[in-house]
């Protein structure tokens, strides 16, 4: 027993000495000695890490944490032949606008970050107040708030394919699966806040494009616990299918369950609910006929399997959502290398819009939307559509959204 402790102490002491020397060294030695140490690029995260939407924030942060470790281990980002290491700093926003603004201010002003990522509408709105005037490039997952996107925000990228672009993949798929004539009318159920209204707007554009009549649109409160009333109202005049964008998995599952119990049998598509296990657990045998776009429940390619394996090792969990966000950092890396700079965010933004990745967790990725928004800042990628049938969820379709010419 006595013999085990001294080495430990020695170890700690040695560690302390080494640490102290390492800390003191830059002060004593001339700078040129350190010219070999690689430069760093800082990426800041202004994401909800606590509160009700922490799930989304952690999923996004995991993508950056994992990506930075992988890139650094492989020698970093090569800009003009010089390796740069990536450092990721995450700050909590609680999913609130004002708090997100504060987090972004801290990233930009104290940590001198030139690249910020964010998640969900509230955090994005707060972040954008800071990043765009400061010339900081931002990359986010945010649907709706289209006033805050496009030409006037040239440094602002929306990496997550929104419910609108997804529609050009999953509606053709559903038309093939169920037959065009079986899907003539649709209804919408969403939350009564801005997310719900924005998603309703893009849903309407989609339905108009495909010539589908909208029967009703119902909005629930986030405080609602039971969805019987809202579903009963929706299916009073039954539509051919129901869209529940952007309801999270738990609420989607409750809506599905209520709809099936009240006798509705048509397909229900949910562009935001990526947790198939939740839907299966909650809705049980009622979950049949559910269509979940951009949900890859079974990684099939080598890249996808590698992502799943690394996330499990690093974070102990993996979900399809985190997988969907894992490519963002690689597109930034490609942009830095293409632009030959990490300092000039305008040049990086121009380069980033050109970046195309062939093999990511979500398959092929590119940036689009020139005609709709004036700039190519919207991420578009392969849509992995999962369906639930007889209590089993599986990827039934993979296709790149067939966007209209004027997109």
């Amino acid at each position, binding site marked *: 027993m006595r013999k085990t402790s001294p080495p430990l102490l020695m170890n700690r002491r040695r560690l302390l000495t080494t640490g102290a020397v390492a800390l003191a060294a830059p002060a004593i030695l001339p700078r040129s000695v350190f010219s070999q140490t690689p430069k760093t690029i800082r990426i800041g995260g202004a994401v909800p890490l606590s509160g009700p939407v922490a799930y989304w924030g952690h999923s996004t942060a995991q993508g950056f944490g994992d990506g930075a470790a992988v890139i650094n281990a492989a020698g970093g980002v090569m800009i003009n032949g010089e390796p740069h290491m990536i450092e990721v700093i995450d700050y909590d926003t609680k999913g609130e606008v004002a708090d997100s603004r504060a987090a972004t201010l801290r990233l930009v002003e104290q940590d001198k970050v030139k690249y910020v990522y964010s998640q969900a509408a509230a955090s994005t709105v707060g972040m954008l107040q800071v990043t765009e005037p400061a010339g900081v490039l931002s990359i986010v997952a945010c649907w709706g708030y289209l006033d805050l996107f496009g030409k006037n925000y040239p440094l602002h990228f929306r990496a997550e394919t929104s419910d609108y672009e997804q529609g050009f993949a999953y509606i053709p798929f559903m038309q093939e699966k169920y037959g065009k004539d079986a899907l003539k009318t649709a209804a919408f159920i969403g939350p009564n806040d801005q997310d719900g209204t924005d998603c309703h707007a893009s849903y309407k554009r989609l339905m108009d494009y495909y010539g589908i009549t909208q029967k009703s649109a119902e909005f629930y409160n986030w405080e609602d616990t039971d969805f019987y009333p809202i579903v009963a109202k929706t299916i009073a005049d039954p539509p051919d299918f129901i869209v529940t964008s952007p309801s999270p998995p738990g609420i989607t599952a409750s809506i599905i369950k209520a709809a099936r119990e009240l006798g509705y049998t048509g397909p229900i598509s949910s562009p935001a609910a990526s*947790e198939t296990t939740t839907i299966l657990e909650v809705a049980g045998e009622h979950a049949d006929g559910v269509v979940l776009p951009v949900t890859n429940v079974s990684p099939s390619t080598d890249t996808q399997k590698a992502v799943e394996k690394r996330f499990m090792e690093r974070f102990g969990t993996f979900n399809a959502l985190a997988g969907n966000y894992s490519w963002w950092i690689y597109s930034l890396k490609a942009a830095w290398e293409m632009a030959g700079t990490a300092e000039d965010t305008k040049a990086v933004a121009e380069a980033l819009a050109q970046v195309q990745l062939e093999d990511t967790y979500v398959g092929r990725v590119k940036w689009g939307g020139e005609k709709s928004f004036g700039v190519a800042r919207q991420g578009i990628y392969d849509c992995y559509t999962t369906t639930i049938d007889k209590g089993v969820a599986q990827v039934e379709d993979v296709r790149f959204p067939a966007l209209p010419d004027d997109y």
Partner: protein
Amino acid sequence: MSDFLQMGLTGLSLGLMYALIAIGLTLIFGVMRIIQYAHGEMFMLGAFALYYWHAELGLPYWAGVAFSAGLIFCLGAVLQVVLFKPLQGKNILYSLAVSLGLVLIISGSGQLLFGTTTKGIPSAVSGGMLIGGAYLSYERIVISAVSIGLIIALWAFLRHSVTGFAIRAVAEDPQTAALQGIRTDRVHWIAFGIGSAMAAIAGCMMGTLLSIVPTMGFLATIKAFMIVIMGGLGSVIGALIGGLILGMIDSVVTTTISGDIAIILSFVVIFLILVFRPSGLFGQNWD
């Protein structure tokens, strides 16, 4: 006609569920005169206890409900002794603050321990029946029956058992009760435990019907307070009536008009009840 029946049935089952959450809260307030803002967190922990018992370990459902109730009873009793006992007799604000702290700690640690993904508890029963064109699932019937059963059991317990008498005596006048030889400390932790266990059972029921996340407690707290305030703090019947009123507003107004109006209307109703009956529908006048 069947539309109205559906609305009525939905409102009834919803109201009974709400009442189940609220009844524990009203008991805790009635006996201790403290605000237990973390009541919803007990609801959440109860649901997660059942989740790990039934969905993860695969043990029987109803035994899991009993296990969850027992576990949360103990947790509630411990919390009462450790945190709320020192606040006895102080301003009600302090209990509000401590329980608010509990909300932050429990929901935050819940996210850390249980993960942030939404989970579901597989139901014990499935299927349903049509009554005059309106659908009623067996699951909802079971939940309503559990609610009614527990409310009656609690009522009978308070009426007819010795401990129930002691609880009512302490609620009526703690000092006189103590003079009569009632151990008020014991009554306090028992009542707190029972109240928390009721929340846990409600969590098991609602968690099975809907889905569970570590942050779901806050919504339950909001609903519970809305009901308890409507019915009058400390009144079991009040909680039942309040739950039914809220359930009916949620069902009927959401179906006929919209969800926005339903929630605004429920707050307006609460406000009006308090203005015209400043102690709620069945409440006593606390100061």
